[in-house]
């Protein structure tokens, strides 16, 4: 591994990952309305993007779904992880709790479509939110469970020994100890929900498409430079978010 050639795949990977993104960013400032030829610098497409109500509505819908499902998934996932660590060693339940995280999204999507259809449910943001909660919860539970295996059980025993009830102990001792795991799980659930397309495509109502669904219909109608601008904006937000997350995790870790 000492030779220089050993690093070739490493650099190739990063080139492969970033070249397409770089092209999108550059092309987002292209004045021409075909995405292939350079027609001078312009922020025209950002203006188009800003005035695009479909994208704005899609973004709002996505944020509603991501926020709602993250809150729900975090609560359910955390309780489940703690409960499983304490009361069961069942492999079946453990597999069940992680299944949504590894199940192909398409399978979960058709299952939920079949389910909603069977109970004659109205499709809308709530049906996407409920669907995203399923896999969000699996990720939260998995992350919190990893954290739990490193947790010091004697802390809870000490709390009970000092006279705190089960609820107080859970809120004052167990939860703070798990906080980094919970935050990490919640962030994961939020991120995945924002990007999720397949399940949303199957379970969203026709009235409220999420952003990925809006993008899908745009992309299907061929290349429009507006998407380049959107990609650049999303990328900038992601960069900022990653930096923020880094700060936050460092903060919560230091609070430990």
């Amino acid at each position: 591994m000492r030779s220089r050639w050993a690093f070739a795949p490493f650099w190739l990977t990063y080139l492969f990952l970033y070249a397409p993104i770089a092209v999108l960013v550059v092309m987002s400032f292209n004045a021409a309305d075909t995405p292939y030829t350079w027609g001078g610098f312009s922020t025209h497409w950002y203006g188009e993007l800003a005035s695009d109500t479909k994208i704005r509505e899609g973004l709002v819908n996505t944020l509603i779904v991501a926020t709602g499902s993250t809150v729900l998934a975090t609560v359910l996932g955390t309780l489940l992880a703690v409960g499983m660590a304490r009361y069961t060693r069942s492999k079946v339940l453990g597999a069940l709790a992680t299944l949504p995280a590894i199940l192909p999204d398409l399978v979960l999507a058709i299952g939920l479509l079949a389910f909603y259809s069977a109970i004659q449910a109205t499709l809308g943001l709530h049906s996407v939110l409920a669907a995203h909660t399923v896999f969000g919860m699996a990720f939260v539970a998995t992350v919190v469970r990893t954290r739990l295996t490193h947790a010091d059980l004697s802390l809870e025993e000490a709390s009970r020994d000092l006279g705190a009830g089960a609820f107080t102990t859970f809120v004052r001792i167990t939860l703070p100890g798990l906080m980094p795991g919970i935050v990490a799980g919640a962030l994961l659930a939020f991120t995945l929900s924002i990007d999720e397309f397949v399940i949303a495509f199957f379970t969203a109502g026709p009235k409220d498409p999420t952003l990925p669904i809006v993008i899908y219909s745009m992309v299907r109608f061929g290349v429009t430079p507006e998407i380049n601008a959107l990609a650049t904006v999303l990328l900038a937000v992601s960069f900022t978010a990653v930096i923020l997350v880094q700060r936050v995790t460092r903060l919560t870790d230091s609070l430990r």
Partner: protein
Amino acid sequence: MRTTRRRRLRVEPLVLLGPGLAYLLVFLVVPLGLVLSYTVFQRGRFGGIVYEATAENFTRVADPLYLDVLLHSVKIAGITTLLALALGYPTAYVIAKLPAKWKTLALIAVVLPFWTNFLIRTYAWIVLLNSQGVVNSALGDLGLIDEPLQLLYTDGAIVIGLLYAYLPLMVLPLYSAIERLDPQLGEASANLGAGPVRTFLSVTLPLTLPGVLTGCVFVFVPSLGNFVIPELLGGGHSVMVGNLVRDQFLKARDWPFGSVLALTLIAVLVLLLMAQAWAARRFSGEGDRA
């Protein structure tokens, strides 16, 4: 006192486990159960299900046509997985050996593209691979080609799109497997007379095999079930299992047959997970350093 204690012991698990398991029951077990049960019923004229048992859906999936689609999907997903492994293993290896500061940066850089929208990442390749696209113009400008190459709407484009979408899912488990590997084992191997290649084959590779298989599951399974990339980058030239399932549910309105096709996805997942679990047991690195 005694009675309240006993009651608490029964209420607590209920409060902790109840909501989550109930949610999973309603939104996971029941839906998957429905899909499973649909496989033996007939389609309704306008979609939906006619509850009359039939084995036809299963005999249909054995039709050479659908077997071809399955094999073709497995081939495409398999090539994608192998490429991801070929690119991901050395990358993960180098990252694992970087100094701590660069390591974090390199890892974030692998995951970051994941944070832009999946569809946009796929769209980027339309821009790149189009016959007027960046790749063709670059090759043309360099004088390497006279006519633009047909890059988009080929199986190759699908493989590249899938690889681009899922490569980070290969790098991450590989990284964690290599990172966990005791560097002294490599030294021990050298000390016992093994050159770098032999050490890699006899020690590093078997001990990171669980990570390799995890990465393969993470890449292979979603590649097999993906319908967006074949649609956008394959130009309808080629159908994968994911497209078939989607079409049965949203176009042909043949839910029972779509369920049978989805079952093949689940079967592949289960098989791969079993292989992974076997490798994790067989090549576990645990216990030695206890």
